[in-house]
């Protein structure tokens, strides 16, 4: 190809790639930065990505639990109108209750769910420290961490859950 043609082709390609989206679709999405996503960016992933700054211990979590969670989840997490949070009954069959201790694969799920969805009637009212504290309380009551362990963005993902390795991906080729 001649240099002139090559330049033309390159120019066309550049034009095509930069304006390809403009030419093909409505292009009505507005750019948004991760900072602007802000308050919605609440996924706490199993490897710890997304865990916010902050920390808490079981001792800090106990009074918060008593005040904001016990009404539905029962004293000490034993369960009431909402499910029990403490307890590790063996799974003997499909009717065995699934609990945090005997079933959940990841400790980060506890943090994630409390932060986005709890308390039931007033979600997103807990501070990040409070969420870490309640998480620590629940994990400690379940003997998955020690009573004095500090839960934060570094330590929480390291808590290995007893049932973590018992999952089978049902249809691997759909992933």
């Amino acid at each position, binding site marked *: 190809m001649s240099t002139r043609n090559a330049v033309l082709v390159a120019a066309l390609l550049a034009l095509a790639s930069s304006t390809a989206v403009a030419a093909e679709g409505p292009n009505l*999405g507005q750019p948004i930065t991760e900072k602007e996503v802000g308050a*919605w960016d609440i*996924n706490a*992933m199993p490897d710890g990505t997304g865990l916010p700054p902050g920390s808490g211990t079981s001792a800090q979590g106990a009074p918060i639990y008593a005040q904001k969670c016990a009404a539905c989840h029962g004293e000490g997490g034993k369960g009431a109108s909402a499910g029990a949070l403490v307890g590790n009954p063996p799974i003997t069959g499909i*009717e065995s209750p699934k609990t945090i201790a005997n079933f959940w694969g990841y400790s980060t799920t506890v943090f994630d769910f409390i932060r986005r*969805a709890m308390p039931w009637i007033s979600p997103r009212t807990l501070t990040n420290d409070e969420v870490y504290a309640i998480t620590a309380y629940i994990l400690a009551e379940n003997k998955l961490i020690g009573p004095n362990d500090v839960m934060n963005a570094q330590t929480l993902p390291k808590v290995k859950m007893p049932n973590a390795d018992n999952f*089978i*991906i049902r249809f691997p080729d759909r992933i």
Partner: protein
Amino acid sequence: MSISKRHNDSLQPVAGNGLLDRRALLGRGVVFAGAVSAGSAGSMIGAAAEPLVDGPWSNEVGAVIPPYQVASRFEKHVVRTVDNPDNVPRNSRARTPHHLLQGIITPNGLHFTICHGGVPDIDPEKHRLVIHGLVKRPLVFTLDALARYPMVSRIGFVECGGNSAPLFSNEPIQANVQALHGLASCSEWTGVLLSTLLEETGIDPKAKWFIAEGADSPRLHRSVPMKKAMDDAMVALYQNGERIQPGQGYPMRLWLPGYEGNMNVKYLRRITLTEQPAMSYYESRTYSQVLPDGKAYRFYFLQEVKSFIANPSPGLTLKEPGYYEISGVAYSGTGRVTRVMVSADGGKSWGDAALQEPVLPRAFTRFRMPWRWNGGPAVLQSRAWDEGGNMQPTRAEIIAHRGQTSKPPSVLAFPSQHFNGITSWAVDTKGEVKHVYA
């Protein structure tokens, strides 16, 4: 002999206990019926009719036409059952009355739904959809913007992963088809394909999953493989022609044809492309199935090939022996249903049912089977096959793989999920229909 053979094809039972050739339903029977219409020999069964009278409704002007029509007051029993009528802090479910419906489209007001934090009242002007994470350009969309994108319409089912869970009970729970199978429905969904929006954001090749999150109070989120995003995932805005109703996710939901209901996130507000799955509460705990050996499935996703008979079914008592049309729905998350067979003798013999055209992939398919009930005991079953070569299993086959409870749970409980086995209805000599295992 040869003449009677030629004309008798449609009369021969195709399977035991009265099942007739489905071709009787496909027009050939109509030709024969025409031959007998002139000079009828008089009444065939039953007493003579009463004199006709004008009902009062024919003699007075009717009511004003309402702007949004609802069903006749005489149909007020055709509703969903609602299991959390006081909206206490737990999940709420509404189940479709399959035994009272026909065709394949579930009317919007009767489509099943499960809400994990009540039904939110979302202002469409303020609602946003943000797509971010492993994309080239994170973008936010208003509803006005989305309305201008190319729209696609597809008819397809949505089914809760836990639909039919009562059949994991070790004893057959006595309940009707709405209670047992009511967490599945089918609609025409119209919206923008997620892949269209991802063309605009661009995709970082590292992305293997996207996390879909809702704007409801629990901010329910699920992880979905990028494979599904690029296949047929839709940001759905319309259901059966009108805007999606609040119980179905107004103003928008994610629709993943053939994938378990919980993943079809309602009140969709955020899509985050990631390398790893989020392992949310719902996919870590709820939608993960304990197996008999103590292990558990996760990422089941697929609603497998399934069928059930809606009529006759428990509660719909047969008044008298005679001709009936056995009718039900079949569907598969893999694709099209290719065959449905019906048995009236508990699985000893089977005949092919007629499938209502057009047969659509990942949508309800209505099947119908003509049946002459002789008044004796019968056990009705249906079984479906899909274009992937999958066959609906028997209940016994599922239980052998997945286990069952040791005592019967509440009909509202979910001992496990993804039950797609054969359902059996026993008809007794009084015409009453009960749920049995056969």
